[in-house]
């Protein structure tokens, strides 16, 4: 009887989460040759806008763009702060003044996921609900008012078994307050499936960052991909 009451609530939460994911969430994927599991928004912008071809640890990176679509729109809005036409003009400026190259542009999430899996250093983005194989999903660290913090200890979240069995994934976005010493002081949910969020928050509270002169607040995205 009790389980009959809980089940609709659980289903509603799951539905909410997956619908929320379809409404324009995006995850950043990379070829496994890219060594870090997380990068900052500043690094992501440098890869896509400034022609940065290697990360601080020496990993080769190259950007892959979508031609259009909800993931493309969400990516531009959230990370690059440019409209599609402004982005195209930006790349054309680079190309025709000799200050950069045009990134690879592909038509669909499937094409991007396939290309990223097969191409050393490729970094792209797909809709959150797309299942990807042979790539890693990068956590995106939002640099706050202070410089980005280097992650020293990362604990992976436990994927809730029921959701994994039901092939339900998604990205959870969290606001993480980090002390000067590097421990996580508090975690606030910004968006994502509430059940996945419980697992993500539990994991992130155990993360440890490198010490810094002052406390920092970062935005962290954690993706849950079934069949990974």
């Amino acid at each position, binding site marked *: 009887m009790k389980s009959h009451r809980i089940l609709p609530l659980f289903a509603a939460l799951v539905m909410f989460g997956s619908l929320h994911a379809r409404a324009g969430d995006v995850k950043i994927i990379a070829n496994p040759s890219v060594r870090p599991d997380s990068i900052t928004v*500043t690094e992501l912008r*440098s890869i896509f806008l*400034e*022609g*940065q*071809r*290697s990360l601080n640890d020496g990993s*080769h990176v190259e950007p892959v763009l979508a031609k259009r679509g909800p993931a493309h729109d969400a990516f531009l809005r959230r990370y690059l*702060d440019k*409209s599609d*036409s*402004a982005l*195209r*003009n930006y790349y*054309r*400026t680079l*190309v*025709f*003044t*000799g*200050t950069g*190259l*045009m990134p*690879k*542009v592909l038509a669909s999430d499937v094409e991007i996921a396939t290309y990223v899996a097969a191409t050393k250093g490729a970094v792209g983005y797909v809709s959150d609900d797309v299942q990807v194989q042979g790539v890693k999903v990068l956590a995106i660290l939002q*640099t*706050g*008012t*202070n*410089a980005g913090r280097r992650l020293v200890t990362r604990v992976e979240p436990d994927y809730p078994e029921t959701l994994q069995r039901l092939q339900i994934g998604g990205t959870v976005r969290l606001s993480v307050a980090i002390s000067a010493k590097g421990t996580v002081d508090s975690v606030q949910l910004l968006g994502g499936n509430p059940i996945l969020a419980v697992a993500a928050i539990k994991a992130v509270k155990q993360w440890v960052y490198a010490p810094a002169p002052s406390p920092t607040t970062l935005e962290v995205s954690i993706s849950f991909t079934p069949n990974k």
Partner: protein
Amino acid sequence: MRRQTLILALLYLGAVQSSLYAQDFKVFNRVVQVHGFASQGFLYTDQNNWLTTHSSQGSAAFTDFGANVSMQITDKFRVGVQVYDRNLGDLGEWHPSIDWAFADYRWKSWFGVRGGKVKTVLGLHNNTQDLDFLHTFALLPQSIYPTDLRDATMAHLGGDVYGNISLKHGLGDLSYTGYVGRRRDSSHSGYAYFVMKYGVNNSDLTALQYGGDLRWKTPLRGLLIGASRLNQQLTDTGTVTLAPLGTIPFSAVSKSDWTNQFYGQYAAGRVRLESEYRRFVHDQTVLNGMLTTVSDVRGWYVAGSLRVTKPLEVGSYYSRYSITSVVGGPLSFLAGSLFPQQTDTSLPANHIYDKALTARIDLNRFWNVKVEGHFMDGYGLSSYPMGFYPQVNPQGFKPNTNALVLKTSVNF
């Protein structure tokens, strides 16, 4: 025939967009990209002929194109070259040139170097002024970006240092460029064409130039402000034909030409607003000090554009240009009839005030069409040219000119 072929090619390239998207291939396992662009315009004016064309009869002598090849050699090292050609009235005349050709080593995000022939960063649009498809307007504000004088600021043979720095405490980003090099004007440029009227035949017009640009992407989303400085030491050699003396060697130097430019741009959603101010001081000594001219050229504009629908953008600007000239030296009495002292900027000969209205239609991602109107007060021809030339206006100048500009461009 050549123009008709180019127009047909433009239409074909614009229509067959699927062939325009990705033009890259690999050489020695390195990505090589090939890109190109072309534009064709039409000018009609109701009074003075403009930009060395016979625009009062309608002129389609307004064509340019370019193509480039770039290759990423390593993660930090890239090389490329672009060829550019144009025909604008009596300028360019289908003489292709290397637009840029350089090697670029980007060590870190905050520091890179490039060397070769490099586009000069000066204000918001100097290095992109040929790239019609990037701009709302068919003609950028001519007070700052005179298309007939593009050679004077476009590129230098030398080197740049550049970088981007993200400021702490959420204060935005700073981008800097510093450069030094030599510029060489084409004999088919506006200045060489202008002095030809006075019997001067340039064989070499070159300048040492150095300067820099600093721009700040402010914490206020969409707001960019910046400043540029350009110093030039110009050497102009050739011959001059003077009635009593015949043809004699000609030389002119200017050791302290400078340009200051300040700019701001705000973009939010469908709206973009921008404004720039430029002051250019040209201090020239001709024929070993027999004649001196100091020209003080000032320009500014305010522009706005609105993306009405996905394919339609409209825009307008007000552009204001003025020039004063002071002539001195032993031969000034002789030159006075050609270049009288010009200090009153209210005279039409010493200013151009231009109101422009434009509509841009993007037919697809690679092909656009623009319709633009200009309403100009003055013709600004003093000791330094600015769009209006005596060669194509032998009857003299009228104070006002209205112009219709039609332009289409493609890129891939």
